[in-house]
């Protein structure tokens, strides 16, 4: 086996050195009734070339762009990733290192994550960002637990227009602590109805998503005001950070914790993971924040350098009183997003976000002109809901045969919206593909 360097001669001389006759002697302390009797029933080891053949065949059994025109978003977005980002990310000094516990020989990771933290705060308009969480959904769950710690209250209000899978994840995380979750209903225009918040007491957090699950831009400022009036923290979730290349950031509109999915920023969709949990908050709450943080300092000679810091919040020191149990996060994905943000630059991300917006508007307009109803009037980014009608299922299937996936059906999560589909368009979708979709659904 090419990953195992030991020759027979090595093994026998090493066995002699440890005073064992046979390699099985090394396991003699394991009681017999704990051992495996026969060999593991696994296929025989493959050669590199056999493995390639097998993986090629599995991976071909998948529908992906550009062969398929996929108008699906709903928390996972197809954006172009510059080759330079993939190439740099493959540098094994980054990818084969552990968590940077030994800062002297981990300055590459540390400076890159410090830069990531900075870019995230600039994108979201926040004061501090951590080194990453697993994904947008678990980041939201952790944000709500953080709000519960900060306010010492036990109830959270979350919008029904937060991604359904994020709400599921929140329920899983909050269940054992017996925290109460109240769902905020939606308004006719596709935004969250926050009018009920004022009447709720003991509220730790008010959480909404923007752009929300229907792609609509929420009214952040008034949500923040209502939340703060009731003494709760305003938690903002997102699935499409590209929106903040164009829209006002959550920080300048009163958000206390901003968390979401960073997959759009240079990370392949990869069937849903790994993604990137982005997490930012106000500096005054930093000691209640979950996750790792990189800070700037100096070395013995006064040279600048970076270290993991404020570790006393974390599990390896505070154990059962830790702010979270998170340990390994999604560091390499954070690095990818930093490379991506650096490649775009401030000018580039605004231009790209504009293009995304304009393309989605093009399709929205086209479908409207084709006679389909766009039920929600609020401005949207990348994604929007269209009512294709109750009988669209057959058309959807027919389109699939033509390698067009006409969005995500909303009926699963919002039974009252059967016949409604969530469509997504990014910069990767050409006008011709959109024209084809419009033509096909019309017929």
């Amino acid at each position, binding site marked *: 086996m090419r990953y195992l360097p030991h020759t027979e001669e090595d093994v026998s001389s090493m066995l002699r050195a440890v005073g064992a006759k046979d390699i099985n002697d090394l396991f003699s302390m394991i009681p017999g009734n704990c051992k495996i009797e026969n060999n593991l029933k696994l296929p025989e080891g493959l050669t590199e070339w056999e493995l390639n053949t097998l993986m090629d065949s599995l991976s071909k059994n998948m529908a992906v762009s550009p062969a398929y025109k996929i108008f699906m978003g709903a928390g996972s977005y197809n954006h172009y990733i510059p080759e330079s980002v993939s190439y740099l990310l493959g540098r094994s000094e980054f990818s084969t290192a552990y968590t940077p516990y030994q800062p002297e020989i981990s300055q590459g990771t540390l400076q890159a994550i410090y830069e990531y933290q900075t870019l995230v705060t600039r994108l979201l308009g926040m004061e501090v960002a951590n080194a990453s969480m697993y994904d947008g959904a678990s980041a939201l769950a952790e944000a709500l637990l953080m709000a519960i710690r900060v306010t010492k209250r036990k109830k959270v209000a979350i919008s029904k227009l937060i991604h359904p899978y994020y709400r599921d994840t929140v329920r899983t995380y909050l269940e054992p602590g017996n925290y109460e979750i109240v769902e905020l209903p939606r308004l006719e225009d596709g935004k969250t109805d926050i009018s009920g918040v004022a009447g709720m007491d003991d509220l730790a957090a008010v959480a909404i998503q923007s752009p929300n699950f229907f792609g609509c831009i929420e009214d952040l400022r008034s949500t923040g005001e209502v939340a703060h009036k009731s003494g709760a923290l305003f938690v903002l979730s997102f699935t499409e950070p590209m929106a903040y290349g164009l829209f006002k950031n959550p920080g300048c509109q009163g958000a206390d914790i901003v968390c979401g999915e960073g997959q759009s920023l240079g990370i392949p969709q990869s069937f849903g993971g790994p993604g990137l949990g982005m997490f930012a908050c106000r500096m005054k709450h930093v000691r209640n924040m979950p996750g790792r943080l990189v800070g700037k300092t100096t070395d013995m000679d006064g040279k600048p350098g970076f270290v993991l810091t404020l570790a*006393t919040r974390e599990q390896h*020191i*505070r154990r059962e009183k830790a702010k979270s149990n998170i340990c390994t996060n999604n560091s390499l994905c954070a690095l990818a997003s930093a490379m991506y943000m650096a490649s775009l630059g401030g000018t580039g991300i605004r231009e790209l976000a504009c293009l995304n917006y304009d393309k989605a508007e093009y399709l929205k307009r086209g479908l409207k002109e084709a006679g389909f109803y766009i039920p929600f009037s609020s401005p949207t980014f990348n994604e929007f809901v269209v009512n294709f009608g109750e009988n669209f299922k057959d058309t959807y299937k027919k389109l699939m045969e033509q390698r067009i996936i006409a969005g995500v059906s909303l009926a699963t999560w919002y039974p009252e919206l059967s016949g409604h589909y969530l469509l997504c368009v990014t910069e990767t979708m050409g006008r011709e593909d959109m024209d084809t979709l419009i033509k096909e659904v019309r017929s």
Partner: protein
Amino acid sequence: MKEIEELFLPDNVRYAETHEWARDDDGNVTVGINDYAQDQLGDIVFVELPEVGATLDKGEEFGTLESVKAVSEIYMPVSGEITAINEALEEAPELVNQEPYNRGWIIEVKPDDPDEINTLMDNNEYIETLKGDE
């Protein structure tokens, strides 16, 4: 770390087993951590202080001290109401290391029972407990 004979353990304060000191200042009790505790913890980087007005029993946790790689709780040496906290520690937690009995004080307590402080150890008794730990 310091040897026992190197520790500064003044005789004008009383000592708790959990390494806090308490001093009667005209009826109020000033509380901090002693030289042994600050030396064991190393460079203190953050002090989590309680709210003024809180009433706590002897032995209850009233705050935490953080060094780079450790957190330790600090406990009430006497029962009473917290009447002041040392806000200077928010900006300069190192005062707990540098001047544990002076500018590094942590809280001031109005004791429920002014005599309770006398149930704490004097410096000689405290030194004996340290020797016992070794």
